């Protein structure tokens, strides 16, 4: 298996001002620059790999750092620490602004959440798909037209719709435009940030099938970010579960959802509504999540809401430990391991 993307120890912190008010203002004034300000640890020491042709799911609740991680590895923002390797290239040392004009820019592309909001409203569908080709491939004229039409056809977008603006397209058609412009430059890795969250179930199915077909045809790798576990289960080979900036569990999608080892994953799986099943198994998260601002490095991030919390969780932060193909960051993972 050849590695495509290798993310090692990536962290991203954002300094925060500490809010309004006199005290915060004084603190900011006397703080010695940005280093002294409190920091949000959006992504904290995250490592994972994506193989060629693999589909990896990234799940977690809103605010857990999924989007920051995705932005960091698509090089839309700079990382605070760690390395991102795409094949042989080390990307994290290049500033995001410089990388925007890099020839390798085309190798990682992204499909954003709601194509209605992420496509320029003044661009027609044609322009939206042509834009990356013009910028990254220097295409123009007849060659460009041919390429745009070919990509649109691959994504099932009728050619007569190419002259339309985003607001004249339906949700499913907009999603196709978002996918078409991302795959136009033939990326190796496609990052999908909840591509079907804004769609109805019937359209969602069509888009998911389209994504699966494109993957088979072009051999791309996918990083599929979603909080819809039932979709992740169908589309992904492997899954990463994030909680407050940390990866708490990873492994093959089927076995993670069958036998979740981390208490957070267990609560997540139990919360997914299923047809014909009353909410009998009431494994619910209580309490509030911990603040991501300067969290205590020795306390488990999930401690405040965990059903299995013990004193050990306050003393040492559990590290991500491997169990065969699985990896879990919990002191009590052995308790939940399936009996051989």
């Amino acid at each position, binding site marked *: 298996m050849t590695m495509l993307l290798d993310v090692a120890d990536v962290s991203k912190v954002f300094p925060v001002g500490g809010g309004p008010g006199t005290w915060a203002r004084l603190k900011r004034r006397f703080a010695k620059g940005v280093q002294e300000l409190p920091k949000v640890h959006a992504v904290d020491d995250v490592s994972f790999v994506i193989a060629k042709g693999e589909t990896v799911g990234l799940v977690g609740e*809103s605010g857990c750092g999924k989007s920051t991680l995705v932005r960091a590895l698509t090089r839309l923002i700079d990382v605070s620490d760690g390395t991102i390797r795409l094949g042989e290239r080390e990307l994290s040392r290049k500033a995001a602004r410089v990388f925007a004009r890099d020839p390798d820019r085309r190798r990682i592309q992204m499909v954003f959440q709601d194509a209605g909001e992420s496509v320029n409203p003044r661009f027609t569908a044609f322009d939206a798909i042509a834009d990356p080709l013009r910028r990254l491939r220097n295409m123009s004229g007849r060659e460009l037209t041919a390429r745009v039409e070919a990509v649109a056809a691959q994504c099932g977008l009728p050619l007569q719709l190419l002259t339309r603006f985003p607001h004249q397209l339906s949700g499913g058609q907009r999603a196709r435009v978002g996918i078409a412009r991302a795959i136009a430059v033939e990326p190796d890795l496609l990052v999908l940030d909840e591509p079907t969250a804004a769609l109805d179930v019937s359209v969602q*199915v069509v888009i998911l099938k389209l994504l699966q077909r494109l993957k088979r045809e072009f051999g791309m790798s996918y990083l599929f970010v979603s*909080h819809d576990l*039932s979709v992740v289960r169908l589309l992904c080979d492997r899954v990463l579960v994030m909680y407050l900036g940390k990866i708490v569990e990873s492994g093959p999608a089927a076995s993670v959802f069958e036998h979740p080892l981390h208490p957070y994953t267990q609560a997540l799986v139990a*919360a997914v509504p299923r*047809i*014909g099943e009353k909410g009998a198994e*009431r494994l*619910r*998260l209580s309490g509030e999540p911990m603040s991501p601002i300067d969290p205590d490095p020795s306390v488990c991030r999930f401690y405040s809401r965990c059903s299995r919390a013990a004193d050990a969780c306050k003393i040492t932060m559990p590290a991500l430990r491997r169990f065969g193909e699985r990896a879990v960051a919990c002191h009590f993972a052995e308790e939940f391991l399936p009996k051989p």
Partner: protein
Amino acid sequence: MTIAPTLSVEGLSVEFRTRGGTVRALESVSFSVEKGETIALVGESGSGKSVTAYAVMGILDPAGRVSAGRAMFGGLDLLAAKPSQLADVRGREIAMIFQNPRTALNPIRPVGRQIADVLIRHGNVPRREAPAQAIEMLRAVGITDPTRRAKAYPFEMSGGMCQRVMIAIALAAKPSLLIADEPTTGLDVTTQAVIMDLVNDLAKELGMATIFITHDLALAGQRSSRIVVMHAGHVVENAPTQELFEHPLHPYTAELIAATPDSAASLDELASIPGSLPDLRRADLPPCRYSERCPRRIDACAQPLPRPAPGASHIVACWNPLTAKPLAMRTPTESAA
């Protein structure tokens, strides 16, 4: 049973006048909900779920007009009631949880005050006791440190907490009917489960009738005893939850179940629904608005939809319904729309 239902909607039709023509958003929508019962209105976007709720609450857009039908609540027809009558019923007897708590809450008023407002207006609570009771309400919906949170503005709270505040406002006056319009869209699954538990528990405690509007068939199945499936402004099927999933009679319901991701073992097993909603402005809309997408269309579909038998518990608006055939035997229809 002789108990009158809490709310009974009969033959509700709603039209919107737009520049492009009259949109017939709802046509002959009928359903009822009994005391302590939770029903779900399910359908894709544009099927008329929210319009139904808005019509019942009397908060339709000015362009909208109720052209036919009744909505009996107690002895009062909500659709014909005077604004002053409605104002007394709304908030006190019927409450609504809106889709997006961030836009539904007043952004420049602390949440505790917003709950107190409802208590004073509808809950017969003296003005001086309202703030303390508002804090109790916040505690009841599971907000930690309610005394501090009562002073917070909506932007200072997370989506899940705003939704809890909405629930507290809706339930402040102990209504007998609660309409929850997609109460958990935009929330995480873990928060969704907690919020839905909360609504269910409080509904049980107060003996409320609940109308739960959602596009998530699986969630509806888990939380309601009866499901009303809507498509393009029609009720296409209305059945007890279990029966609906085991023996869907309307082709659209069956397609909807087959398209729900968690029912499938692999992506290939998922079926998509061909076609899209018809343009509701058209003058030549067929009597069955699904017939143009329907794989089971027959000649009879051109005549007006069949009238449901009075008192039937499983109602389907179809001339050629599926027979009670187990789900597993249906072959998923292949399509590439």
